[in-house]
């Protein structure tokens, strides 16, 4: 398990770091690359904007209160180049999804998404191109 977590963190570090090639700061300036999280809740919004797409998720947190999570991910043009359109994610708005990623160092409900599981069971994940060969 420990190995699995380490491997996942490493993949995210690589992925998010190289994602920033599009014109941005390093994700390590914001996100704790060692803190991988998974949030299950209702997908409420998708902003297909630069420099990162943004997803909003309402999830039930500690004590039953509703947490409003915001995740960014790779740029729109990156998703376009791997054949994913906004509509592929937007069809899940209002439904339950599970978003995986790394969390902001400042402790806010903010993260970088590297995986999402959609209501129909489809799983989309950013993986290291080198590892996937």
């Amino acid at each position: 398990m420990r190995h699995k977590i380490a491997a996942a963190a490493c993949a995210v570090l690589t992925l998010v770091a190289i994602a920033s090639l599009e014109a941005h700061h390093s994700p390590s300036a914001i996100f704790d690359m060692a803190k991988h999280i998974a949030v299950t809740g209702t997908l409420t919004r998708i902003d297909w904007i630069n420099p990162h797409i943004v997803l909003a998720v309402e999830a039930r947190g500690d004590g039953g209160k509703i947490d409003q999570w915001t995740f960014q991910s790779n740029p729109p043009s990156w998703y376009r180049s791997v054949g994913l359109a906004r509509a592929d994610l937007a069809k899940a708005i209002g439904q339950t999804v599970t978003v995986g990623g790394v969390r902001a160092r400042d402790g806010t409900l903010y993260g970088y998404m590297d995986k999402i599981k959609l209501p129909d069971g489809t799983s989309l994940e950013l993986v290291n191109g080198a590892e996937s060969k």
Partner: protein
Amino acid sequence: MSNRLLGVIACAILIQGVALAQQTHPDLSGVWSYAIDRAPAALKKEQNGKVTLQKIDQSARHGSVGSVGGVLPSTPKPSYKPEFQARVKELSDHESKTDPVFYCGKPGVPRIGPPRKIVQLPNEMIFLYEDISGDPYRIIPTDGRPHRARANPSHYGDSVGKWDGDVLVVDARNFVDDTWFGEDGYIHSDAMRVIERIWKDGENLMWQATVEDPKMLTAPWTMPARLTKPSAEALEESPKCVETDGPRLLNDDHHLQR
């Protein structure tokens, strides 16, 4: 018909043929790969037990220029006059907070790189780009006219083009001075002039730029050439750019991007 008249006609045809040949230039028209580096990651999709992997083809953006003819000698970095070196270093050290491009700013010329689409017309070239700051265009006369006398300074400048053999040479000037012409804090003055050379290598597009700024640089800087492959990916309007990460940055970490 006299031999003399036949000779005149033959000469006229020959002269016209030579003139036509001189006007025939390589056709640079086409759609070229996206100008900005993309993460060489892949999207893994699992659906009903079936796994597919969609990878990014980085080679389309970073072809090898090793054996391509026409490439000018280049250096990795520009040479700033001593009085600007500390400022450039400071900007570079804090790039994640100081680079206009990080905050949806326009990259300008030459930072935007080779165009995504070229439309070559007899008297002008049309360059189309995709960029997160918007989708700029440049219309570059190639009919010998001079630079516009009263054009306002801009991020993409005022350009004219001419052919040097099979190479299109674009002379761009009249820039605003709030862009960087490259990473690492490459600021410039309003005296910057950029010479872009664009040519074909087989089916690929070659692009190489030289930056001149007599106010800030000790000498013109010729950047490494870039080879870009043809693309079947249609141009698409860039979504608006909304940068919200600035206040969250806890350090100066950043990565190369353009």
